[in-house]
Structure formats: structure tokens, C-alpha cells
């Protein structure tokens, strides 16, 4: 390991605690109430007594309950299956941008939402992992959030992971401004595992409304690296409606992709409070089963 890498890690680590704290704060506003599988299974919580049927191992007989009557009872606990939730945040350069209308970049907001969701999930006993988990590691327990945050800071990969458990849940945060075919391919690959999931499109308000005027030369974020051609718009007011139409078309395509595989889709703007988005996301994830 070079010294520079360690220094960078340290710098990232120094930046993480407030992020984690912010995520915890956001997560605390969401009441945790929906959990448990509501049927007998392996777990710690008492579920029901049922009459002893032959074949049950004698060690499962609840002798205290059985002594109250003539019959033998077996104690059943509720089935508490820990679900694995894989989380992904789009690593692209388009995420590192904010307009004058917003205080946070899309990447910052996506990470905040991701960590807040992770905090909620960890508190609920679920297992959380990043989508391409570098060491196939899943985090569990409430203390795992800082480690997850640290791992997230180093995370920049496409949402593809061969090691993801079947029937796991996936939540993807990003602006999904890439062509629809790319998004569709990614989602299809994941859905084929099969996993179910949720897309959260994080957009800057300026991307929604195009609030510029006059003659403007638009440049891409990656233009210096990729040599992306700038676009000269002679009069931005004139194309605003057209742009809104295109954005709506793009979003409709994303929704169609999500609906096609039975996934959820939500839009979040960086000028809106993250709590609302988190609650909606939580409710969308929870009431299964």
C-alpha cells in the first residue's frame, strides 16, 4: 500500500462520520414498525403453542405449558429470516454535480439516502451489502454502519455481482441519465438472478426545469476526458418545453423498465428533504410477505 492511498483513505474516513450521523438522523425519523414474517419459523420471538404431534422431537415440548393440562404442547417461535439487501449508488461523473438551485450534489444526496436506508435496515436486523461487494461482505448489526460508509466511499462499480444471493433485494440510486438500453440491460441481468429491487432516480432540480436563459453553450461533465461535444443552444427559453418532454419520455422509459420486471421506481430531487424519500422507500421495501 502506498502512503498516498492510506492518506486518502484517512481523508475519506474523516469525512464519513458526519455522513453516517446524517444518515442515522434521517433514518431515525422513519418509524420502524413493519418487520417479522408473521408465521412460525426459526427465530427468538414466541409465536404460538401447538399440540404435540408425533414426530416432533421431545426436546421441543414446552413442559411448563404442558403441565397446565393433559395435553402436550410444542412451543413455536416466529420465523425471522434475515433478508439481504444490496445497495448501489451510481458512481458516474454526472452524479458529481449540483446547480445553483440545490445545496448538495446528486452523489452526496444518493449516498445519504443509501446510508440512511442501510441504517434502518441494520437496525431492523437485516443484512446489508453493497451491490458489487468487493469482498463479498455483508454487514449486519447496528454498529456496521461506519464500516459500510467507509466501504461506500471506495465504491465505484457497475451494479453487477455474481455473488448476490437469490431473492435478495436490490436498491439502486442514480440519475439514470444513461441511454435506456444500458439501464434496461443492467436491470434485466439483476432480475434474472432472480432478485427484486427498486430504482431511485436522484435528480437536480435544474435538470428537471432547465432554468437557464439566453444563448448558452452546454458542456458535459466528462467533456475534458471523453471529448464530449458541447451543445450550443441559441435560446434556452425556446427549448425548455422540448427538454421537459424528452425528460418525461426518458422517465417513462425507466418506469417501463422497472415495471417490466416488477421493480419499484421513485424520483427524488436534491432540493427536497431526504426524509420523505426515505420513508417512501422504506414503505416500498417493507410490506412484503
Amino acid at each position: 500500500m502506498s502512503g498516498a492511498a492510506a492518506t486518502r483513505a484517512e481523508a475519506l474516513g474523516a469525512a464519513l462520520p458526519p455522513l453516517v450521523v446524517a444518515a442515522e438522523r434521517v433514518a431515525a425519523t422513519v418509524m420502524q414498525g413493519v418487520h417479522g414474517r408473521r408465521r412460525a419459523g426459526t427465530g427468538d420471538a414466541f409465536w404460538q403453542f401447538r399440540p404435540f404431534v408425533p414426530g416432533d422431537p421431545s426436546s421441543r415440548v414446552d413442559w411448563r405449558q404442558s403441565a397446565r393440562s393433559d395435553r402436550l404442547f410444542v412451543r413455536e417461535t416466529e420465523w425471522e429470516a434475515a433478508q439481504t439487501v444490496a445497495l448501489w449508488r451510481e458512481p458516474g461523473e454526472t452524479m458529481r454535480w449540483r446547480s445553483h438551485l440545490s445545496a448538495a450534489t446528486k452523489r452526496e444526496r444518493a449516498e445519504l439516502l443509501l446510508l440512511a436506508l442501510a441504517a434502518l435496515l441494520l437496525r431492523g436486523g437485516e443484512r446489508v451489502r453493497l451491490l458489487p461487494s468487493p469482498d463479498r461482505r455483508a454487514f449486519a448489526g447496528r454498529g456496521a454502519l461506519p464500516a459500510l460508509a467507509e466501504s461506500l466511499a471506495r465504491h465505484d462499480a457497475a451494479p453487477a455481482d455474481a455473488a448476490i444471493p437469490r431473492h435478495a433485494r436490490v436498491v439502486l440510486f442514480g440519475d439514470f441519465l444513461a441511454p435506456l438500453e444500458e439501464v434496461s440491460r443492467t436491470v434485466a441481468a439483476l432480475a434474472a438472478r432472480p432478485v427484486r429491487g427498486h430504482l431511485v432516480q436522484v435528480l437536480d432540480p435544474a435538470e428537471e426545469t432547465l432554468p437557464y436563459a439566453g444563448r448558452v453553450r452546454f458542456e458535459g461533465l466528462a467533456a475534458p476526458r471523453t471529448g464530449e461535444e458541447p451543445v450550443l443552444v441559441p435560446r434556452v427559453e425556446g427549448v425548455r418545453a422540448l427538454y421537459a418532454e424528452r425528460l418525461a419520455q426518458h422517465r417513462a422509459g425507466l418506469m417501463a423498465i422497472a415495471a417490466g420486471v416488477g421493480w419499484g421506481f421513485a424520483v427524488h430531487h436534491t432540493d427536497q428533504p431526504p426524509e420523505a424519500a426515505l420513508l417512501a422507500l422504506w414503505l416500498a421495501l417493507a410490506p412484503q410477505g
Partner: protein
Amino acid sequence: MLSLGPVAFAAPWLLLALPALPLLWWLLRVTPPAPRRQVFPPIRLLRDLPAVEQTPARTPWWLLALRILAAALVVLGLARPVLGPGAGTGVAAGAAPLLVVVDDGWAAAPDWPARMAAAAAAVERAGREGRRAALLATAPAETGAPPAVSALMPAEELRARLAALRPKPWAPDRAAALAALRRFREAHPGGFESLFVTDGVEHAPAGAPEGFAPLAAALAEAGPLTVARAEGRPVRRLAPPSAEADRLGVTVQQIPIAADAEAAVLARTGDGRVLARAAVPIAAGAAEGRAALELPLEIRNQVVRLELDEPAGAAGVVLLDERFRRRPVGLVAGGEGTADAPLIGELFYLDRALAPFTEIRRGALDQILARRVAVLVLADRTVPEGPERERLERFVREGGTLVRFAGPRLAERPDPLLPVALRAGERQLGGALSWEQPQRLAAFPDHSPFAGLPVPEEVTVERQVLAEPAPRLAERSWARLADGTPLVTADARGAGRIVLFHVTANAEWSNLPLSGLFVEMLRRIVALSAGVAGVEGEQPLAPLETLDGFGRLGPAPPAAAALPANRIEAIAASPRHPPGWYGTPAQEGEATYRRALNLTAGLPPLRAAPPPAGAALLPIGGLPAERDLGPWLLAAAFLLLALDMLVSLGLRGLLSAPRRAAARAGAAVLLLALLAPAAPVQAQRVPGGPEPEGAAALATRLAYVATGDAAVDEIVRSGLVGLSDYVNRRTAAALAEPVAVVPGRDDLAFYPLLYWAVTPDAPQPDARAVEALNAFMRHGGIILFDTRSEGSGEGFAPGARAALRRVTRDLAIPPLAPVPEDHVLRRAFYLLSELPGRFAGGTVWVAREVDRANDSVSPVIVGGHDWAGAWAIDSRGNNPYAAIPGGARQRTLAYRFGVNLVMYALTGNYKGDQVHVPAILERLGN
């Protein structure tokens, strides 16, 4: 040259660029304004948008018109348009060379710009017509070179020479100019046209052959002559004034005109302030007018310059030098420490009395005698035998005047440097143990220099030193008391004189120093003294500062030479001796000595020079000259381009709303900044605001230094409240509520005592605070420093002693000693053997009694007994802080110390007399 009606173009070929303007139109039409750059991630969605509304990207037609107008203005401006070509030059069109003759002597300075404009217009015109021109200035140049005709050159090149011409502070030499013209005619025999810009004054001295007429005739002979001269205002100059007893007589000379006129003369100080103005009426047809500048002598001494209140150049300025001799006065006091104390210092009244009309020097005797003074005043200063006395004797023998004032020290130790022998001790008139009344002054004897001064009734003398009776005492007495005892005696020694006032120079022995008579007496003595001689004889005086043609002082030109001191009155101004200040530069211990060489002192009487018959006359000034329009057109073009830039920025969206808001906010801040200084002025007038100035002086009160620690401040405040209560109950003193003060911010003069609780973190006071505290102590205030950690309280405030050292580092603390057993502080009201506060057992320090300043009252008391803690009372009248080791006795003693302290601060060592009771009783017994 292209003339279009009233406008002509000097560079018409540039107008060819005008047809190219439509090209600019086309270029601007096809070039849209530069776009704004904006980073935008969803750029993909913006690609391949159908081209809608491309037209607004083009420049609007009115912006195009603006730009083309600006470009047209630039082209027109560069083509050098001239409005009214040839107007007012008075020079006919032709091909002959032009000779411009300019009078550049002193008389040309007042309307110099108009003269230059007239000459420049003629040269300009000649230049446009392609003629050649030459220039002849009639006054000698600064280098002393006689007038000469310049080479014949293209008129454009002559313009720079003309612009470099300046009026000279001396007279033109027309005879030399005529000689130069003859040489020019020999070199260029052809005819030429000439323009003579003349000042209309005959400068040749009376009796000498005239200078103007021959020159004009020679010019007329060579070709057409135009004489340009100023009309409408007479040539005026200011003659050197005549000094009379209490006024300066000023004379304004002018060439007679047919109407009554009035000139004005200003008297200015060295730094340019106007001290007086005198209106000088000049009757019709008169050659001069007189008036008087009435100024008191003190003010007159400050006047260094008289000048006409109109543009008159060097001839309107007269410099006043020191025609009367300077008489510097040296002041030496006996006790230097308190000599300047307001109202009681020995030199306080002397300084006030002498400062308005003499130059005062202060310092040690050696320093003052090292320089030259006319009068040396010793206020109660004894002169012990030794080199000092020898130097003083020499000073008097060589013509110095030594003025001495009596006092306790002189009464104890008289020395020989006195006009009369003195009896030992002093005489007291009036007072508690005397039947005699304070004596008034008798009228001054006739032989006294004070003779004739009115003797005010209210001047009385309570104490004086007495002269031993001697045969010549009467004639040595300059002033006597009503009973005949001498008050001021004087005696000549060598070339000098010793004068003795038998009273002090402050109001302690008599109220003479408070009266106006004192000032008059000192003035007579100073006037009687021999002055400090200046430089005389053949000694050269170097030029220090000289006047230029406009009457402004500046460094002397290189050609200026020194002149002998005794001939400065007779020398006329010339390039070698320009008018101005001459003298010896400042040397070690000596101020600059300077004499004035005035232009008008050496000029012949004013005579008019009538223009020759047959010459065309041209009045200068008043006629519209040619006006160059180019700069105005270019400025307008730049304004339009700036406007265009603003509009372009607006079109590109770069002048966004926040920026406009910022601009507005900036303007508001600027406006506030302009208004802010006015606000406090108004605040002072608001009724019911902070206490008016001086309210603190209405009652006696104790004060404490605000430490910044609220708890400590509260303890000290309640302590001083408790002490004030105690003092009010037990004594006749009436103390008001104590106040907190910040040294350097608050005026400390109202408080007799300052309680300073030194906290361990007390900062070092800043320079202003130190100055205020030192002044407070010097003028009789007492500061009590309390470290609150002495004796039984050791360790209560660790670090307070270091803080005390820090706080007092810059203060003028006298040498300290523990409070002696018989110190007044222990006896001022109660008899105390110890001085406890909340703590007891520590040492309390006061100033050692070596200094008799402030009646031996110690300006500081230093201790650590936390007296304020012991005196403190709470709202129910209880003492909230326990005394250590304790007991009601300690508290009582603490209060008694407080009473003694207040008495000490209020009465000084008045109670110290008790200390001497045994000695007094013993003396009475004898």
C-alpha cells in the same frame, strides 16, 4: 485640410474609412454574441434539438446602430476635426513665414493662458497653411541667456516650443530682443509676417531709451504686424510695504485707467492661511492706491507673504522677512518634574504669557545655552557654583538678559547672579499668624521700563524675598510694592542685564502671574533685550526658494546665484537673482536665517507702452478660438462602447438578478458609509442619552478600575459603596456613589482615589491608558493597587503579583517603601498601627519620601489585603465576605484604614503637621 462649413478636418484621408462602415454592419449581423458556458449533466437530452428561433441570437438592430455610431465617431475623431478654423488668430492667410514675438516677463503672467492661446492659434493656422514660423521671447531665459529668435521651422514643430514657454519673474529685455531681431533679419532677408503678443508695459527704466517702440517699428518694417494685447484689465503690481507701528502700509501700483477701481491685498502665513485682507481703492487716473493692514504684533510676525487677491503673477507677491530681530526666550524651572503642572507649575504662566509673541525654548540649562537665546528665564532655579554659573555669567556679560523668579529654593540659597543682595528667608504678608495685609503694587517709577503700564488694583503680593538695603537699591528697582519694598529689581552686568522678580512665577506668592500686567511686563523685558543678530555684511546669502512667474515658491533654478547680504535691498530681480528667499540654511541649533528679494522693489515705475500706429490690433482672450473636436468625439465613442458592453453582458444573461442585487447592495453600503459619520453627531444631541460631559465633577466620589472580571468588579464596587457609607457617617466628607472607570477612555481628573484590584489575568494597559494614569498620578491622584493575596490571604489569587508587575511596567511609579510608622496614612483620621483589610499581616507600600512633588503625597499605595472585600456590604447591609483571620476588630480596623485612605486622598499631607507637633511645641517653648 478639408473644410466643411464651420468644421475642418486636419487628417481628411481618414474619412475614407467611413464607406467601410456597412462592412461592419454585415460582420456584426453574421456574428452572434458569444454564448454563456454552462455545465449540464443531461446534455444528451439536449442534443439534436430542432433549430427553433435562431433569430434572437443575432444582434438587435438598435445594438448594431449603436456600434456603427461608435465606429463612425472613432473615424471622425481620428480625422481631427476643428471647429471654427482660423478664428481669432489675427493672422492673414499667406505664404510668408510667421514670427511670433511673445513678451514673457512678469507682466504677462496674469493672463498667460490667453496669451498662449492667441500665439498657439496663429501657429496652428500657419501650420495648416504649411508656412514656417519662428519664435522670439523677449525676456531673458532662466539660464540667463539673452533673448534670441528660434530657427525658422515648420509651424507644427514650433508648437512644442511655444508650449514650453513660461512667464519669467523678471522684466523683458526689449533692447536685447531688438538686437536678436536684427541678427535674424540679416540671416533671413525676406519679408515675414509677425504677431507681437505684448504685455503693454514699457519696461525700460525711466530716462533710458524706450524699448517697445523700436522693436515694434522693426517688426512693422519687415512685414505686416499684428499686436495682440490684453484689454479690459489694467496691469497691477504690489509694492513692498512700509512697516509702521501697528500696521503695514501697502501700495498697489497700476497703469492709470479711466475708472475707479479697487484691488485687494491678502496677508498670508507661511503655510498659506490668510490672516487679513485689505481693500485698496485706486482712483480713476491714479497710478497707485494705498491702504493699511492693521494687525497686532503677534499676528504680524506670522505674516510672511502679501499678495494681490487676483491673478497677478510674481509682481503681485511680496515676501516679508525678519526685518526686526528675533528674540528667542529660554525657560528653565527649578524642579523639572512639576514645572508644567497646570495652574501650579512654575513655568505654566510664563509659557502662557510668552508663547504668543516670542519663540520659546525649553530644556536643561546646558541645552538652552548651547543655542543662542536673547532672554533666559530661571524660575526659582538656584545656580550652584561651578561651570554652570560661569556659563551664565558669560551669557549675561555678552549681552544676554537673565530674568529670575524667586521661590523657596532661591530664598534658602541666594547666589551672586542677582541684581541685589537678598536677605535670608522670605517675607510673608498677611496670613493666619500675621497682622500685615497683602501688599498692592505702587505705580512704576519713571526710570523703569514698565513706566506707563497701568497698575491693576487686584494684584497683591503675599510673600516675597527681601533685598538688603543698599545705596543704589532705589534706582535698581523697576517695580515696588505700596510700602516701598522692591518687587522687580534689575542690574546691568557687562553688556547684559539681570532682572529679578521677588515673587514666584506661579500664583503661590502673589497673583501677579494671573494678571495681564505680568504679560505686559514680560513683553517689555523681552523688547528691551538685545536680539540675536542675523547675517550681515558681505556674507553671501544663497537662494533658498524662489518665485516663478506665477508667484509660486519653488526650488531655486540652477542659474540662481548667491548675493551679498548688505546689497539685497538694491538688487533688481534677474535670471541670476530671481525673486524669493535668500539666506543661510538651517544649521545645528540655529533656525534658517532668510531675507526676501522682492521683484517689485527693483522695478522702474509703471509706464504704458502705446501700440505703434499702423499695426493691426488684436485683443487676446474673449474670442472663440479654434476648438479641437477630436477628443470629444473619441470620448463619446468610448462611452457608447462602454454602454454596448453593458448591453451585451445583459443580452448574454451575465448581468443576472443576484449581480444586480449585489450592485444595489454595494451602492447601499456606500451610501451608509457616507451617512455614518453624520450619525454620532446627531446622537450626541439626543436628550436622555448618556450623562452629559462634566456630570462626574458635580460630586466627589471614589472610583475603581474596571477589571473585566464581573465578580471582582462587583466586590470592589460593593466595597467602595460600603466605605463611602462609612465615611459619610463618620466624617464630614460626603462621597457619592462610586463609579467604574476605564483608564484612557474615561476622564480620571474628577476622582481623588482610584481603587485597582489587580486580577492574575490583568492585561498590560495600552499606551493611552498609561498616559492617562501617569497624568492622573502627576496631577495629584492616588491609585491603590490591591493584589488580594497578601499576608493571611497568601495564595488566594496566585499570579496577581506577576500581574501587578505587568500592569505597572509602563507607569511612572516612584521608588516605594513600606508605610513608615509615622506616615500620614496611619494618622490622617484614626491612629492605626496596622492596615488590615479582609486579610492582614502583609506589607503595604507607599512612595519613599524623597520627592517633594505633590506635597510628598504618595501617588500609589500597593498592598494585597483585599480591603474592598472587607468594606463590602450587600443589599441588606451585611458584610458578605469573612475577614481572615477574623473578628470584628479586624473589620473595624479595615474601615478605619479606608477612612484614613479617603482623608489622605482628599487632604494630602495636611494631617502630616501632627507629625511635627513635638517640634512645633519645642519651638514655641523656646
